[in-house]
């Protein structure tokens, strides 16, 4: 999935993962970036930074991923990481209803404080643990639709849908820029740095 072919544009995109302790944020990232999974992933401290490129058709997105700590003491730091993010994945654990409640709070916070252009995904992780499920997929799906998120159930353990989430985000990022430019709704005094690459692509 590395960047291919000379000449195509590489687009940088800041992506942040938010969610409750133990939802599987780090596991999702490690599965996506390193193809690894460990059963007992230790708690993240502060935030961990990763980068990974993803090719979508003839374009490449370079994700700069902030895997934030779910621990309560780090909550006040979250804005530092989601500020200016092109995309956010809010993660919950399908076997833990409280983590879904927490995920909704993250969505609210992003809607209130974040950048309105941020692409938001809702990921119900640990989808391999069907027998322990506490959050029905339909409920999460309905919630996602109401709030304009795209939703997937994932399993970092079995790798189901993990790359797909990131791929979907990449696609939306690239679509977003195509749709957005004809609309011409660019506010001059707040130019998101991520969009600069996109504007140059139409002049190429």
């Amino acid at each position, binding site marked *: 999935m590395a960047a291919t072919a000379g000449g195509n544009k590489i687009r940088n995109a800041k992506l942040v993962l938010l969610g409750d302790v133990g939802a599987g944020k780090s596991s999702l990232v490690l599965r996506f970036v390193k193809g690894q999974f460990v059963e007992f992933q230790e708690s993240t401290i502060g*935030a961990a930074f990763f980068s990974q490129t993803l090719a979508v058709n003839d374009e490449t997105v370079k994700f700069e991923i902030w895997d934030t700590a779910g*621990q309560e*003491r780090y909550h006040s730091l979250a804005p530092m990481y989601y500020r200016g993010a092109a995309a956010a994945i809010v993660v919950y654990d399908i076997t833990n209803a409280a983590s879904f409640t927490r995920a909704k709070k993250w969505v609210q916070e992003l809607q209130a404080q974040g950048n309105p252009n941020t692409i938001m995904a809702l990921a119900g992780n640990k989808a391999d643990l069907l027998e322990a499920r506490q959050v029905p997929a339909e409920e999460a799906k309905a919630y996602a639709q109401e709030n304009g998120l795209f939703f997937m159930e994932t399993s970092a353990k079995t790798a189901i849908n993990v790359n797909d989430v990131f791929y979907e985000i990449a696609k939306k990022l690239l679509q977003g820029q195509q749709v957005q430019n004809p609309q011409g709704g660019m506010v001059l005094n707040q130019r998101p740095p991520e969009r600069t690459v996109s504007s140059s692509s139409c002049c190429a």
Partner: protein
Amino acid sequence: MDPPPNPNPNATDAQPQAEAGVRLAALSLRGGRDLPPDFEIHEHHLDDDDDDDDDDEGYLTAASRGGSSTCAWKGLRDDDRDGDGDDVSPPSPSSSGYAGERGSSLDDDPDPEPAQDWPRNKKHLDEDDASSSWRKRKKHFFILSNSGKPIYSRYGDEHKLAGFSATLQAIISFVENSGDHIKFVRSGKHQIVFLVKGPIYLVCISCTEESYEGLRGQLELMYGQLLLILTKSVNRCFEKNPKFDMAPLLGGTDAVFLSLIHAFSWNPAAFLHAYTCLPLAQPTRQAASAVLQDVADSGVLFALLMCEHKVISLVGAQKATLHPDDILLLANFILSSESFRTSESFSPICLPRYNPMAFLYAYVHFFDEHTYVTLLTTRSDAFYDLKDSRSLIQNVLLKSNVLIEVQRSLHESALHVEDLPIDPSSQSASQPPQSSQDMSSQSLSSEMAIGGPAGLWHFIYKSIYLDQYVSSEFPSSISNQKQQKRLYKAYQKLYASMHDKATGPHKTQFKRDDDYVLFCWITQDFELYAAFNPLADKTQAIKMCNRVCQWVRDLENEIFVYGESALSWQYHHCWGGK
């Protein structure tokens, strides 16, 4: 034997004889099951090797065998817990009495860990103060709030220990209500040490025969570790709400505290208040220091390059100095959190000795399994700058082969007492300073009779001016972990007695017991702690210590970090000393 702590003597005075008798009977029943006493001791020791108690020398066994099972817990139980002091039934795991269970030294550990590593996750969450296994633990650490809410316990589930925490809080406030402060309670082999830090109480309950000062120092470090994670501004939460539940704020940090408690049984930095460096050739260290200095000049507060717990180089911005305790706590935090190893991390941390109120932001990156750089800044938005600084550092380290030299040093450069140069007078006449293997094999026959040169087994040298220490590798006579822990504890005790405020400070001490000859020598410039074979000759031992000091001075450019002097040398060297 000291009597049990007993603020209300009448409650138990009538009982002690009878109780002790019953307890003894219970002990002989358990201890004597089918085994001769020696067998039990042996089994106990074997058990220790994969036990998580870092502090067990079989004191409990000794205590109970001698019939001196003064009940350490009795004071708590009789007077502050449920008051049923007449619990003379044979001990059972479900009984509320603490007395009898102590007698058994067999720690039936449900999940023994591999012996080679210390157990990182052995918190034993299934335990609480009603479990016999919990009561048998030889060293407990508790953190609680001044309203009695549990914040941290080394063993067991904090939630289940709410009642026990309330008891500890009651003891502290009972004494405070009389306008006094409780420091410790001693009872038989047990010592309960208290440390009050505003709304946060720290308590250690131990039967490891460590000194009060030593245990108090450990509690201070526990508090420092807590501040490193949360800063002292956590106190404000208690101002707003005295019943504030602080435990969730420390979520996910069990490994950090467990690893710190483990350090109390192996890391001399924990009682010496000094750090140690990785031995490196001077030019190698200078290459690292120079690039760290460049980075510090560009707005980083502290830049540290470390290999495990050893400093390769550290540089601070103008006038900013790092306290050795902060280095210990920072390294412990980073090394015990697996999270830092998976990628680059950016995390708020507080250096309690530098500024206990404020968070700094730490950029942490591991270059390899052991070697990592930590860049500390006051700017929360500095991540990308620090990332760039890191890649600059990485380039220099690779170009000047620093990382390779570090790996080599990690495996080869340790100080071995066998390598101690012989007398300068005879040095030229005999063998040249060849590789260590040659020398040790030649001297094997003569000196190994009592081990090492003149029976020297091990030493720690602390430079007072530099706040740094260097210690030799353990010799074959102190090869297993248990022996090493015992020596560590002996040094700890020696340190405490040398620095005893009531009787000290002292300049020298020579002490012989069954295990070692211990020698300590403190001057304005250094502190030397040395362990010899118990049969070592005193005059010879003192001679050896002089040689050790000379040896350390000869090697000082490789085994210590010289902040400014090393750098000024570097600059003079680079610019021709203009």
